C-alpha cells in the first residue's frame, strides 16, 4: 500500500512540476526582448535593469517589474546603451531624475556613508562586547571539602 502511494507520487509530481514551470512562462515572455548588436551591451543592459529600482513598485528592480514606468525605463536604458553610453551615464541619468533612491547599490558619498559603514560599526561594537564577555575573569569561588565530597558522591553514583 505504502509502495503504491510512493509510485503514485512520483508519477504525478513530474507533470505538476512541469505544469508549474509552464504556468510561470507567460510572465517571462511578456517582457520586452531587445536586440543588441554587441553581447557586451546586452550584458550591461541585463546588469543595469537589476540595479535600478522601480519607483512605482518599490522593492522590485525595473527588470522584474512590468509596471508601465518600469517598461519605459527599460526602454530608456536600452536606448542609451545601444547608443554606446556607459554604465556611469545611465546611472547618472536615472539618479538625476529619480534621486539616489533608484540605485539599488547606492554610491559612496556623504549622505550614504552611514549606509555603507554602519554594518561594520555594529560589527565592531558586537565584537567589542563579545571579547569583553569572553575575557571576563570567572568569579572563582574555591571549592570547599564539602563540595568535593558531594561531587565525588555524584560521580560515584553515575558509575
Amino acid at each position, binding site marked *: 500500500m505504502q509502495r503504491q502511494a510512493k509510485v503514485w507520487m512520483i508519477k504525478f509530481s513530474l507533470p505538476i512540476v512541469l505544469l508549474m514551470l509552464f504556468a510561470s512562462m507567460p510572465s517571462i515572455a511578456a517582457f520586452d526582448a531587445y536586440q543588441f548588436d554587441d553581447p557586451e551591451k546586452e550584458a550591461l543592459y541585463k546588469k543595469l535593469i537589476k540595479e535600478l529600482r522601480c*519607483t512605482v513598485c*518599490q522593492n522590485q528592480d525595473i527588470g522584474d517589474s512590468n509596471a508601465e514606468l518600469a517598461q*519605459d525605463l527599460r526602454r*530608456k536604458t536600452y536606448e542609451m546603451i545601444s547608443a554606446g553610453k556607459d554604465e556611469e551615464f545611465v546611472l547618472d541619468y536615472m539618479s*538625476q*531624475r*529619480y*534621486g539616489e*533612491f533608484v540605485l539599488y547599490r547606492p554610491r559612496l558619498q556623504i549622505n550614504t556613508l552611514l549606509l555603507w559603514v554602519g554594518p561594520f560599526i555594529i560589527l565592531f561594537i558586537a565584537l567589542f562586547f563579545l571579547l569583553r564577555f569572553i575575557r571576563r575573569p570567572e568569579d572563582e569561588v574555591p571549592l570547599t571539602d564539602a563540595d568535593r565530597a558531594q561531587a565525588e558522591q555524584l560521580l560515584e553514583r553515575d558509575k
Partner: protein
Amino acid sequence: MKRYLIPLALFIVLVVLLAVGLKLDPKHIPSPFIGKPAPMFDLPILHNPQQHIKTADLQGQVWLLNVWASWCVSCRAEHEVVKRFVAMGMAPVYGLNYKDKPEDAKRWLNALGDPYQASLMDISGDAGIDWGVYGVPETFVIDKKGIVRFKQVGPVTNSIIDEKILPLVKELNAEAG
C-alpha cells in the same frame, strides 16, 4: 537594578526608532529637482498640436505644472482642487498630459472642466521621465527663474493648497524675476 537599566534603555531606543519608521511614508521619495532648474520639454499643446511649448517659454513667471491623465483615478478628485486654485488667479497651471490618448484627454477635460493654461501632450512618457514622474498626479511649483521649488507626489488636496502652495506662490510672486 543597574543591570536592567541598559536593556530597558536599548528597548526604548528601539521602540522610538520603530515608531518613527512607522510614521515615514515609503512612497515619498525626496525629489532631486528641488532647487534645480526645471527640466526641459518641448511638447505639442493638446488643443492645438501644431503649436509647441518649451520650458524656456514659461520663464519669468511663477507657474505650476500638474501631471495628469484621463486614466488616473485620483486625478479626478484632484481636478476640483486644481480648479479652485486656478480660480484664485495666483499663478497659471500648465497640465502635463502624461501617457494619454489625446481624444480621451479632451473628453475628460470637456466633462470635468479645463482649468489649465494649456495641456501639453506627453504621449510617450519621455517628458515624464525627464521630470522624474512616477506617481500621477504630480504637481510642481516653478519660480520666475525657472527653478523647481516644490513637488507634490499624489493628489494635491485643499489643505496642501492652503498650507503649502499658496504661501509659497505668494512668496515667489514677490521675488524679483
